[in-house]
């Protein structure tokens, strides 16, 4: 299936940059392209955001378009919903996904249901950017991976980039979408670098996965940080096991076709996502594959994730619970 929009004209140039820069570039391009777009959140202005993702934008676009808020997630998430319903395109930054709980009423009952409840009469072009994941010793209230919650809720589109390129392309599509889109950024990835298209029309359709590396023996469907780790692992295993690595990219809608096509070829599936294992993203991916490629499977599907616990503070404990390439390797070993 076609996954990325080819640039309409001109040579497709790329530049090596970090995930952080790719996201900032996406915002800059969309702020330039559309006056209705504005960024809102805690300390996104002069401070530049705690992860420095919005750094410098206030100097270019001013305080009206890069808008600092008081620490009131429910208030400004709600304001973004109201603003979106009345003709603007807010890009909301929630510093840590863990804080989504603070404003979940506005997300669940207002943002997600608005269009449907009102008979399709309103648009809800809100983008919510938030950070997820452990690895920084940030402890339980700042390390969660919550994307399953929101991907599960009808009315919300949820994406989670696994490469710098995906970070740019997905965010641009999110901002251009007339529906609520949540972009879950893994904070351990902000420094990760890669080639990113400079074309201002480069976008990635929401709801598409990408085969990042082809292989024959086993499919690893990964998200966020685990995409890079799985790609490195695939390199390591080359010659021994041929691993196909897919960046899931979009949690909802889910690109079942790409998954099924891959499993039809390899016959084996490992799902690697840094979220709790029960009732989650893993389960959804597994179910889609079972429903559509059951007879292609040569071995039980394997899940790699967090063992239904919170992310602890101590490095000794955090390292224990966070999934990484070794866990993916162990999962492959169990079925290949």
């Amino acid at each position: 299936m076609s996954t990325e929009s080819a640039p309409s004209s001109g040579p497709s140039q790329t530049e090596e940059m970090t995930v952080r820069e790719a996201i900032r570039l996406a915002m800059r391009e969309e702020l330039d392209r559309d006056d209705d777009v504005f960024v809102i959140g805690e300390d996104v202005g002069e401070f530049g955001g705690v992860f420095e993702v919005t750094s410098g934008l206030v100097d270019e676009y001013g305080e009206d378009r890069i808008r600092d808020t008081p620490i009131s997630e429910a208030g400004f998430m709600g304001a973004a919903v109201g603003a979106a319903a009345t003709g603007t395109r807010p890009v909301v930054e929630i510093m840590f996904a863990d804080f989504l709980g603070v404003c979940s009423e506005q997300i669940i009952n207002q943002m997600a249901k608005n269009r449907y409840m009102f008979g399709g009469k309103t648009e809800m072009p809100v983008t919510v950017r938030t950070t997820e994941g452990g690895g920084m010793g940030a402890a339980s209230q700042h390390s969660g991976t919550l994307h399953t919650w929101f991907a599960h809720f009808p009315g919300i589109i949820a994406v989670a980039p696994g490469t710098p390129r995906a970070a740019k392309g997905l965010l641009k599509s999110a901002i251009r979408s007339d529906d609520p889109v949540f972009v879950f950024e893994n904070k351990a990835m902000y420094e990760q670098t890669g080639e990113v298209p400079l074309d201002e029309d480069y976008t990635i359709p929401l709801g598409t996965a990408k085969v990042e590396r082809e292989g024959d023996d086993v499919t690893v469907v990964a998200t966020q940080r685990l995409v890079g780790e799985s790609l490195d692992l695939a390199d390591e295993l080359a010659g021994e096991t041929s691993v196909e690595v897919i960046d899931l990219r979009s949690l909802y809608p889910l690109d079942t076709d790409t998954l099924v096509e891959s499993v039809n070829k390899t016959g084996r599936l490992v799902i690697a996502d840094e979220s709790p294992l029960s009732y989650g993203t893993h389960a959804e991916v597994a179910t889609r594959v079972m429903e559509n490629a059951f007879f292609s499977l040569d071995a039980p599907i394997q899940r790699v994730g967090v063992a239904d616990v919170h992310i602890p503070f101590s490095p000794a404990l955090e390292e224990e619970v966070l999934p990484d390439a070794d866990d993916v390797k162990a999962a492959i070993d169990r079925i290949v």
Partner: protein
Amino acid sequence: MVAINIETEDGQKEALRRMLTIRAFDTKAGELFGDGELPGFVHLYIGEEAVGVGACAALEEDDYITSTHRGHGHCIAKGLDLERMMAELYGKANGYCNGKGGSMHIADVDAGMLGANGIVGAGPPLATGAALTSQVKGEDTVALAFFGDGAVAQGQIHEAINLAATWNLPAVFLVENNQFGEGTPVEKQHNLQNLSETAEAYNIPGFTVDGMDVTAVFEAVKEARKRAVDREGPTFIEADTYRYRGHFEGDQQPYRTDEDIDLWKENDAIESFKERLIDAGTITESEFEEMEADISAQVEEAAKNAKEADYPDPNEAYDDMFNATVPEIDGFAQQMRTDGGEDR
């Protein structure tokens, strides 16, 4: 920690000692963080010592406090142990939360310290709950919530104050106005002259006190505590103060200048209290130096021990989720172990 009477000389010395301890502890924590010794984020309380100490001094041992992400000072003021605090900052097994919590989540429920908190504004509802327990059980305990000026913008604190006011609960709401919520100045977050005006909406008393003056904070909280135990309901206190360090260690602080900080330092809570005590003959310069050296040795010792202490066994990562045993967690834990980890 037992209430101390700041009207007595011993009480004054004790208050000074606690303020110094907080400063020494947090100075050390900042150093350790800078040296890459501590994982995670560290938010220091330096500059705000008079608020935590003045407030906790006015509380009785069984009273409750709720804290914030900037909680080390509250812990020390409430009498928590430096060694176990340091161990928690390091993520060691003997820390207050066995390494699961870290700087932002130190708690000691037995000591009435209901937890530092990583969620801005989450403490006041917890304090309202603790005050409710006290009322329901007919106890004489009081619950005090520490929270920042930034937290005053959070809806849940208003719900908490409204409940406490409506139900006449023995609660004290103490906002530490250190002038910033992260990098945003208080004027950009609130359309109020004084945050204590908030109290009017709930028909409870509201005061603004000098948060650089430990005695002023003590007296305000003591009065509020008296109202609470006399069943006269909650009080809202704003303490004006300043944090000398960045929001977190490593913050570049584009939002203020060194001159701004120096202006507040002229009125440093510890310096001015010390001078007052020396002028009054309560303490001599050399006694003060002795006190400082003693505290510094304690803090160094705590840091050294914490550094040498053991990390928790990785298997403990799967403990404490539920009271009951959940087979999934054990099963998943087993599946996820790649180091050939032994059975539990």
